[in-house]
């Protein structure tokens, strides 16, 4: 699976795409595959403050639930309403199905996140265990 080069990644399997002062956040293909069929996304409301490394919501499959950790600090500007009715979009297109958009308070934060290559190496190590 090719992980988009323009995204940055976390060890908790979120991705973020930075567009100027906005960060677009979702979970990786590896994550959706581990979770199985996704049945519900618990996303924060617009104007909620999120913090890098802190939990901002969760993603549920039939048998498991996974916390979502924010890769960035800022304020939620948009929530993907599509996922309410069709959470399975994350399964079919994890890198396209964004969950929230965040107005970044510090765009430089993303520098310390993993690149696509770093992330691929990381999951190779994880699965190798």
């Amino acid at each position, binding site marked *: 699976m090719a992980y988009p080069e323009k995204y940055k990644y976390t060890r908790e399997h979120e991705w973020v795409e930075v567009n100027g002062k906005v960060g677009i956040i979702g979970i990786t293909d590896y994550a959706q595959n581990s979770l199985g069929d996704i*049945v*519900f996304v618990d996303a924060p409301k617009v104007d909620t403050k999120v913090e890098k490394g802190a939990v901002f919501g969760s993603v549920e499959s039939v048998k498991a639930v996974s916390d979502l950790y924010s890769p960035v600090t800022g304020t939620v500007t948009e929530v993907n309403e599509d996922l309410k009715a069709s959470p399975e979009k994350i399964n079919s297109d994890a890198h396209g199905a964004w969950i929230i958009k965040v107005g970044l308070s510090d765009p430089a934060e993303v520098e310390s996140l993993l690149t696509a290559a770093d992330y691929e190496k990381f999951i190779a190590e994880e699965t190798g265990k």
Partner: protein
Amino acid sequence: MRYLPKSDAERAAMLEEIGVSSIDDLFTAIPEEYRLKRDLRVPRQMAESEIIDYFKTAAEKNAKVYSSFLGAGAYRHYRPVVIDSLVQRGEFLTSYTPYQAEITQGTLQAIFEFQTMICELTGMDIANASMYDGSTGAAEAVMMAVRVTGRDNVLVARTVHPEYRDVMHTYAQHQGHDANEVTYGQDGRIDLAALDQAVTEETACVLVQSPNFFGVIEDIPSIAEIAHKKGALLIVSIAEAVSLGIVRPPVEADIVSMEAQSFGVALSYGGPYCGVLAAKEKYLRQMPGRLVGETKDTEGRRGFVLTLSTREQHIRREKATSNICTNQALVALMATIFMTVYGKQGIRELALQNLAKAKYASDKLGSHGTLMFSRAPRFHEFVLQTEEPPKRLNARLMENKIIGGLDLRRWYPELHNATLWCATELTTREQIDAAAAIVAEISVASAAR
């Protein structure tokens, strides 16, 4: 021992196969100093006939052949015989939680039917049978409202069952939310003006019981309006499920917490009972307890399955909506059968009979005392105030094999000489007349003075 399907020879053979010489070799992990070297000091092993004798003797020491006017959260209704015939079938009685759906469709479909009937009766969209009883159900409903709204102030009517309020207090202790009580008015209903004053933008919910502890039916639409205009949720607790046969359902509520004991569950000195939680659909993901959903199998056949279990403790652990695990499946099944037996017409007819009996009782008894809160509508309970102190009144009634109304002094000391009486379809005219005659004796005596 007759429950153990082994002979000593088999035990010996199995030990040999395992490769140990005695059963104690399998207990060596227990440190020597903690191994019990004596028999437990419990009564000796009894034959079945002896066990039955023991309990029969105990049962004899409980009230028998008394007529009873007790209610207050536990109600004496007729239990159709088919209930026990069916729930004692081993496939229901000794079955496990339906985690393996393919081999528990019986339990699952019955719960689905239960969920449906509760929705129909309460006016809610979703329902489950997972609370231990009405009191813990009310506590869980409050916690649910706190989660949903993110607010931590809770308002509870003083006319909610006192033991329910005690339980809510215990649960609330460490939840970071506090509960304030709202008093009742002259009509025995929650004081709407006081409620209006008390509800703020910090109020998570308003909890009322209807019919309330005094038997009075609350004005749900007005309460709902007051709660909702400040964004608080309305929780209605129902202690007497049969009332829903004739009293309008609390459709304005956000959450309904109900005790379904009246639907075919034996009084059994206080438990096990059947706590039900029902709510509007939008609160689905915050609702604790087990839910059964309809779905299809790989061949397209309809089947039922436990669903939305990610809310539960076995997946979420410390983030679970509740720590609840066991539900009340067997008592819920009793309720399901009860509701099916009475059905659409019967539930109304049953409730009407209760209403009629209580009306007769309150008229007769009320003529020898003061019927309190008579300005508001009631279901089948009423509060009677007498000249004679309840202790003496009830002693005289007991001499005549009658258990009179519940003395309200310990919870509502401001109500002087007040007792809470309940009449159901099982209360006979004779019993009511007999009780009234006893009550009359003293009031005649004191009138003559």
